[in-house]
């Protein structure tokens, strides 16, 4: 057993810490103050790309980008935690193939990887991609989505509405989850690449959110939106029984520990701010305050270890369904606790609405909603632990 991090990762975290302090946090505060997402031409994005970020893990035909070497997940989680410490919204706003990339790597045809990930190899400018599952009438119950896909010759025609989709209006392409027959549940679901500017893709509405304002969460519609048959992720042959839905959920299984790491980052930021505030106010001598700070630090440490455990299992190709859900459920809860305690320590200062902790308090809430709520994480765990039936 070993709980240490090596010099390479330590150095990397130092670099990210400096970048976070100098660039990520200021960008997040700017977006929060202006109340809208960072514009696509914001210098932060240019510099992010110039830094070598925002690229795909795919390195050209035959690339095994989908099989990361051992240890990559744990390292990525710790980096992600560090960046979220500075601003989780800016992390999501940052360009790159994002949430759908793992699915494309795992299931896309070579031609699809070339077409859709190719532009992310040597970036000429900031580019985004995104994944659209949630609909106004179906979020947690992802099997109940009703955006339809109908085959029409060598095209698919998509109709429906999606909501809260990160970076949707600026994305080069959106991986849209749709159903061939809403009455058939999961079995009939497929993923489609819908490129920017495709006729029928429109009605973009950037939502006004409580927090995480740096990135756009966007609703849009698909009205007789025709995409080529070759835009069906993996091609028709790939879709065996229920594989469609499983493909979509793969994104979320991979994503849960990342959200957990982000939540720990937010929680740590809140704890540090709260400690600094309490120290300045000379309140750390009060054992009631000390006890609560201790509880938070302890639970943050535990949440981080749970998250790393989920990542470590993934790194070693071991099943991590329970651990991934556990890490997310716990991380999100602890982040809420941390920011709430921070607000309490600030007292009336927190109510002014101009302190970083107040922003973190708003940001943290989403961690228990995105990519499966805390309740859904428990449902997933219970399916494994006590064979909770699906219906």
């Amino acid at each position, binding site marked *: *057993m*070993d*709980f*240490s*991090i*090596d*010099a390479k*990762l*330590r150095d990397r*975290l130092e670099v990210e810490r400096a970048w976070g302090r100098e660039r990520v946090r200021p960008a997040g505060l700017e977006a929060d103050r202006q109340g809208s997402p960072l514009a696509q031409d914001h210098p932060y994005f240019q510099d992010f790309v110039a830094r070598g970020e925002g690229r795909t893990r795919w390195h050209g035909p035959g690339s095994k980008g989908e099989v990361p070497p051992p*240890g990559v997940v*744990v390292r990525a989680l*710790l980096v992600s935690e*560090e960046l979220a410490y500075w601003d989780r919204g800016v992390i999501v706003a940052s360009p790159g193939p994002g949430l759908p990339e793992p699915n494309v790597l795992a299931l896309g045809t070579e031609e699809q990887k070339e077409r859709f990930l190719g532009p992310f190899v040597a970036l000429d400018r900031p580019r985004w991609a995104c994944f659209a599952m949630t609909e106004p009438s179906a979020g947690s119950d992802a099997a109940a989505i009703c955006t339809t896909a109908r085959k029409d010759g060598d095209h698919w025609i998509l109709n429906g509405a999606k909501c809260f989709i990160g970076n949707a209006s600026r994305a080069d392409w959106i991986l849209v989850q749709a159903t061939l027959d809403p009455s058939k549940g999961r079995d009939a679901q497929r993923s489609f690449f819908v490129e920017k500017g495709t006729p029928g893709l429109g009605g973009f509405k950037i939502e006004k959110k409580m927090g995480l304002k740096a990135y756009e969460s966007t609703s849009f519609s698909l009205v007789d939106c025709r995409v080529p048959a070759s835009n069906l992720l993996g091609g028709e042959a790939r879709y065996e029984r229920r594989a469609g839905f499983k493909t979509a959920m793969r994104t979320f299984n991979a994503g849960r520990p990342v959200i957990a790491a982000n939540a720990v980052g937010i929680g*740590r930021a809140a*704890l*540090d*701010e709260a*400690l*600094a505030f*309490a*120290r300045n106010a000379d309140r*750390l001598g009060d*054992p009631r305050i*000390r*006890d609560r*700070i*201790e*509880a938070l*630090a*302890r*639970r*943050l*440490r*535990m*949440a*981080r*270890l*749970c998250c*790393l*455990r989920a990542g*470590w299992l993934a790194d*070693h190709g071991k099943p991590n369904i*329970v*651990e991934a859900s*556990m890490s997310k*459920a*716990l991380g999100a809860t602890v982040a809420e606790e941390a920011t709430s305690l921070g607000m309490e320590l600030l007292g009336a200062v927190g109510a002014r609405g101009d302190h970083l902790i107040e922003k973190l308090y708003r940001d943290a809430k989403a961690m228990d909603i995105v990519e499966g709520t805390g*309740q859904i994480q*428990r*449902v997933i*765990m*219970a399916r494994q*632990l*006590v*064979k*909770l*039936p699906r219906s």
Partner: protein
Amino acid sequence: MIDLDPGDDLELLRQTARSFALEELVPRLRDAEADRAVSASVRAAFAQIGLAGLELPESLGGAELGPLARAFVNEELGAGDAGAALALDPLGPALYPLLELGGEPALVEYGLPLLEEEGARAVLVCDDDASLEVVGDRLSGWVPWVPADRPDLVVVLTRDGALVLREGFESEVLRGAGLRAAGASALRFDAVPVAAQWRDTAAAARARGRARLYAASLLLGVLRHGAEFSRDYAQQRVAFGRPIAHHQGLAFLITDMHMAVEGARLLIHEAAWRAESAHPFEDAAASAWVETVSASVLVGPACVQILGGHGFMQDYPMEKAMREARALGLWLGGADAAREDAGRALCAGPPPVALSAGGIL
């Protein structure tokens, strides 16, 4: 770099302890409670598998394994019968002050004689708030509970040192809320002669940290057993036409119990790893102990609740788990002193709290 694989040796140790707990402790747990002791045959079996000298120095015939091995073994024994686990370990966590402060000579002088005497026991008293009074080489005061009937040796761990009492104290045997297989007494010290005394604040803190890990891992075992037993039961027991585990109120409670156990285990292992790799570990051990006690507040009563009325009856081991969990959490100064230690350390540190400072998580 982070590696959560325990490796072959620890895994083998875990399996050995688990088999022993399942084969020897579990079938006799009500007998051990009633007898306030483990039977000679169980003792013999324990001696045979070589777990008795787990942390003793090799020079004294032990295996000289470290805190991780202790954590793994204690979890398994605690899952079998935590009281019996204590009864089987003559020195228990009293080993740590002897080793950390007195070194091998102290162990030879005060510890080894107990190992040679069947059923002899040492107890550790953590006098964190200095409620016991030392005048010259005499100690006075009162300890309301230790998990042993008439202990043979008392080791008192203070903030700045430790002392040993060999004779002259009075033990009043108690019923005990839990851990009855280990026995229970109150101790009265009336100007009792101090046999040995050492002062070393840093070594005392290390001993306290290791003792907390000892207790935490034993408690973790109790909680794991409670969570798993009640989970299995909930999948068998049917109410309103389906297994009770499939009612979401219980399903979520079961997932939360699972999370509490898993989370506490990670904190214990991390703190034990720190101790084993000679990193500062005292605050991490305090946190691990507090978290495990906090988990017990959820898991202890919940494992009874899941069994309903059956949980309340002694036909099932859940009521024992609930009592055992509560009693263990009060041991060695309980969670409050640990919370205070960890809180002070945290608040004294320079801001911001970089949890990843210095290459250790």
